[in-house]
């Protein structure tokens, strides 16, 4: 953790290598969050690229190094929103990594359900379930009250229960 904060401080001073290390350490999380949001591999890579650019240009304004992750997710979400709001057809999600058909189907169904959830609910579901952020942390990232995060989570779960292909107590 201390090493992480030192790297953030170095990056704030303009050390490109330090920021590069921080971003590469978080590359899986960045890519997955972007992919879950836009459901398109090419766009997800573009989002990671644009997020890296924005992070480099604005890291000097990061006041609290300990909030680097929250700050980075916020940039990523803002960039993803811009990409998502361009008029593009949603492409089908194919992220298969296992040979077990049942698990494959479940994973595919879940990804497809998530792609269909309205944007504002999808965003909190991604941050809560996939990024494992707490409701209060999501509130900080999205700059909305915690109550709003709770209600969006509930509505998102409700949507998945009622309209999704995967039946489960979310």
């Amino acid at each position, binding site marked *: 953790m201390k090493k992480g904060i030192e790297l953030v401080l170095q990056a704030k001073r303009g050390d490109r290598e330090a920021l590069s290390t921080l971003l590469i350490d978080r590359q899986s999380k960045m*890519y997955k969050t972007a992919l879950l949001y836009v459901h398109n591999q090419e766009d997800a890579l573009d989002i990671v690229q644009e997020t890296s650019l924005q992070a480099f*240009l604005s890291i000097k304004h990061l006041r609290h190094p300990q909030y680097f992750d929250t700050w980075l997710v916020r940039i990523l979400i803002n960039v993803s929103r811009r990409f998502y709001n361009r008029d593009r057809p949603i492409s089908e999600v194919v992220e298969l990594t296992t040979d077990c058909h*049942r698990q494959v*189907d479940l994973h595919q169904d879940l990804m497809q359900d998530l792609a269909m959830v309205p944007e504002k609910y999808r965003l909190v579901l991604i941050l809560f379930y996939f990024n494992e952020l707490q409701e209060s942390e999501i509130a900080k990232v999205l700059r909305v009250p915690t109550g709003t995060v709770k209600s969006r989570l509930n509505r998102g779960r409700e949507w998945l229960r009622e309209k999704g292909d995967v039946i489960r107590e979310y």
Partner: protein
Amino acid sequence: MSSVNIKWRQETDKIEVPKTAVTRAITQGLDQATQHQRHHRRLGLIITVAALLCITLFNPLTIQAGGVVPAIHQLLDKNSQKTHNYDPTMNKIFGDLSDVSSYQSVSSSTVKVDGLKIQIRGVMMSAGIKAFVVDYRGAHINPAALRRQDVQVTLNQHQSVIDLEQNYGQVALGHYRQFVAFYVNDDTSPRDDSIDIHIGHVNGSSQNVSLPTIKTKALPVTVHKITAKVGNSTVGQGSIDQIDTTPHSFVLNYSVSFDQQKVTKKTASLIRKAAWVSEADVIVNKKKIGDLMLGSSGTKVDEYQKLNQVTTKFQSIFASQCYVNSKGKYVAIRSLNPNAIVRFKLEIPGHNSHDRVLGYLRVPINSLIP
């Protein structure tokens, strides 16, 4: 439908990450940021140099007993009502004093009239438009009288002055600055030029003065030859022949021709008199996104006849700015979609005082950019 317990962490782990591609995306993003930062530093340096140059050329700040008095920040400033005959197009072209690209400094001697020292400080030029700056220094300057002065400008014999506009502002105690801007026709000759200025009723007195002739260097103009045509032989044919471009404005050279035996005498007489291109719509994907800012329209520059075919040549001047409807503001045309098309409306006088549209002439937007 599937019905199972979802282990989110496992589901997350199942998403495959193309690590090489993601690492490359991060590196590319950081590379772009570095370039972006360098570009901004360079831009900052250019702006600083330009500002310093302006300070040197215009002497914008003078410290005096009452404090710091700033110079005029805009040539023709509507908000501070420095002129009654405000022309927004001139202001768009020359209003930004930090941009010195159209500025030429001149070395001119001071003329003394009735206790007043008058000196020409510089000239600004862009396609179809010119301006000059004159300083007045003296103890008894009357700003209201300065505004009432008669300013006459004479260019070389190939050019005429259209819509002369003036503006005044105080630089310091006993120091006023005058801006005079005007449109000109036939501005593309590659030769150096001269401007003669005559001022009547100097500072409210009965005295008149001629300032030393200003020698100006030829304006670097990019010429685009165009072959857009409209109309037919019975009503006349219109065409755009050439567009002379500079970074802040352009001159549209267009002509109307007709066969004397095929049109009525009345129509021939009307076309000989005038033809206007005053409207220019910018179109992207068959949709109008805005229109260009007109400076001056329909200046007749030439007429010639070959057998029965009569051709009359005209010019219109536009600022290189487009009012973009969706943004609600003017933007430089070089920043518009490079695939945009500009549709110029060509009008001729009608028989019953209504103008008649001869047709629309279309050119790609890059024909308007130097």
